[in-house]
């Protein structure tokens, strides 16, 4: 297992996200627990990077550190600011939606803009435009309790996009959805990404999803979380759900799974 944390030279030119030797150690009553061990990853501008790994490999922790919601024990993380210093560096789409139940759909989408002091009229206009793009315009005045799980996660995704961040961080955003809704939203994510070309770090436990969406798939190991291997996804864009039926897709899946499957088994044995 020779992990190659050094990205190809083409990307190294001006990475959007630089993380070097990230280590996260929790101190517990039973002693220190290493969640992430010496994890290095650079992400280029406009790149879509997917991270997969067994449960407990620290991929969500890494994302929270990246988002500034958690501290790191050692190492370095930097998101390069863009030309407009007013733009937020990152916005997170959380697995459990984290859509505020006490705000209407449109208020949720406009939340980031509101916190940055954008005038009400302007932020509602922006939010409305985003809602239209994902077909939620007529639900603008609804409360989250009145819409379905798939719709809530759409709201959560456009809340991040309306905030227009430098990078989009997605933490298993489709993990809680049923299989059909998931496919529909994967298609939608591909479509939106074609339009916006945001820099994305995407955590998922679905290998299919990672290959379908990503330019690169990073495989992590569990206990402690280390970078195992990087796979380039050379399937041309634009992609859609049918891409999963191509031979190249199956080939890549087989190749990555031979590594990931072993890792998942090892993680399960360690827990058992």
């Amino acid at each position, binding site marked *: 297992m020779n992990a190659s944390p050094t990205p190809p030279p083409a990307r190294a030119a001006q990475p959007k996200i630089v993380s070097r030797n990230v280590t996260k150690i929790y101190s517990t009553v039973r002693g220190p627990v290493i969640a992430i061990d010496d994890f290095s990853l650079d992400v280029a501008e406009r790149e879509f990077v997917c991270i997969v790994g067994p449960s407990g490999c620290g991929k969500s922790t890494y994302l929270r550190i990246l988002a500034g919601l958690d501290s790191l024990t050692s190492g370095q993380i930097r998101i390069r600011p863009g030309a407009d210093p007013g733009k937020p560096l990152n916005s997170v789409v959380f697995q459990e939606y984290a859509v505020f139940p006490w*705000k209407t759909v449109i208020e949720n989408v406009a939340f980031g803009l509101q916190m940055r002091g954008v005038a009400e009229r302007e932020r509602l206009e922006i939010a409305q435009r985003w809602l239209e793009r994902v077909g939620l315009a007529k639900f603008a005045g609804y409360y989250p309790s009145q819409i379905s799980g798939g719709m809530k996660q759409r709201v959560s995704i456009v809340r991040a996009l309306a905030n227009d961040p430098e990078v989009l961080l997605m933490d298993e955003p489709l993990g809680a959805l049923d299989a059909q809704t998931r496919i529909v939203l994967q298609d939608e994510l591909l479509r939106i990404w074609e339009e916006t070309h945001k820099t994305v770090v995407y955590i998922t436990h679905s290998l299919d999803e990672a290959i379908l969406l990503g330019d690169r798939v990073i495989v992590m190991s569990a206990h402690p979380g280390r970078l195992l291997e990087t796979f380039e996804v050379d399937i041309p864009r634009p992609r859609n759900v049918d891409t999963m039926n191509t031979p190249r897709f199956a080939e890549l899946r087989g190749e990555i799974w031979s590594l990931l499957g072993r890792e998942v088994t090892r993680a399960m044995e360690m827990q058992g």
Partner: protein
Amino acid sequence: MSAGAVPPRFVVPDEPLERPARRVGPALRYLLAVLALAVVWNAVFYATGLWRTLWWLWLFGNFVLIVLSAERVGRVVPPRGRKLYERSLAFGFPVLAILAWQFIVDVGILSPLWFPQPIRIAQALWELIVSYDRFSGTSLIGRPWLIPQAIGENGWTGAWALIAEGHVWATLGRVFAGFVLGAIPGILLGIVMGINQTVRLMLDTTLSAIYVLPKIAIFPIVMLMFADPFGEGPKITVVALSVFFLMTINTMAGVRDIDPVFIMAGRNYGARGLQLFRHVIIPAAMPVIFAGLRLALGTALIVIISVEFLRAKQGVGFMTFYYWEVLNPEKMYAGLFVVMALGVVLTLALQWLQRRVMPWDRG
């Protein structure tokens, strides 16, 4: 898969399945049986004269028979009639219970001295509303029909004097003042304790200890703290204290129970300090805060009525206790009824407020 080779394993009928009609027949038969049982039950009690001595068993039997028939009716009620059915259960039963009470006292099973008939309690209540007690200078609701005349004679002071003589308004004023003075600081401290671990660790034990202390027990001390121990100050303070501790503990639990993902989302989207409070922490804790307010309302009423029993010249509690001392049970029961009515009205008001403050929380 070639379908022709394998014989079908399930026989699909040619005709569409018949939709089961709503069948009233069995329900009707069942109800008739229950009715027959009721006739027998009541006839036996009537013939043997046992209904006078075993009246509670007799009534309980009838209660069971009503439950049995209502259950069966409930199963065949069409969706459109559901609301009516539920309403008639919710309001019909109290009416039946009151009728039973009236009957039992009328026939002399229970003494009208301790359990005056509902109709006489209603009369007493009416009397309390329309009459003015010269001795204590009070009335139940302040004789509002005299207000136009009073304004004509003495202006607003005249109207105010009328309102001020009302027991209900005195009690309501104390509850309201105590409620606000206790709930607001309680909610604020509760939020601080929910967020800050240091403050929580320092205060939690002490607050839990004081919370369980019956506030009526410290009323004498509270009285001594005021220049006018018999005035409104001590009464409002005891109500405020009991509300305060309850709200602190409840709000703290509410804030601690907030799903951390909401806080993370709030922070990630740029909410800091007060913004985080306004947009995330307070609305997220709101359901628990309102549950606490509901409990606090009950506590506030209990405390103020007990305080008015002890030491007051006015108030619904004072009035109730006064008529007990002069052995006028009808008016005492009327006083208890007013307390219950206050509880219902205040709870409805709180629910209205909750719907206004938390429009997202519907069903």
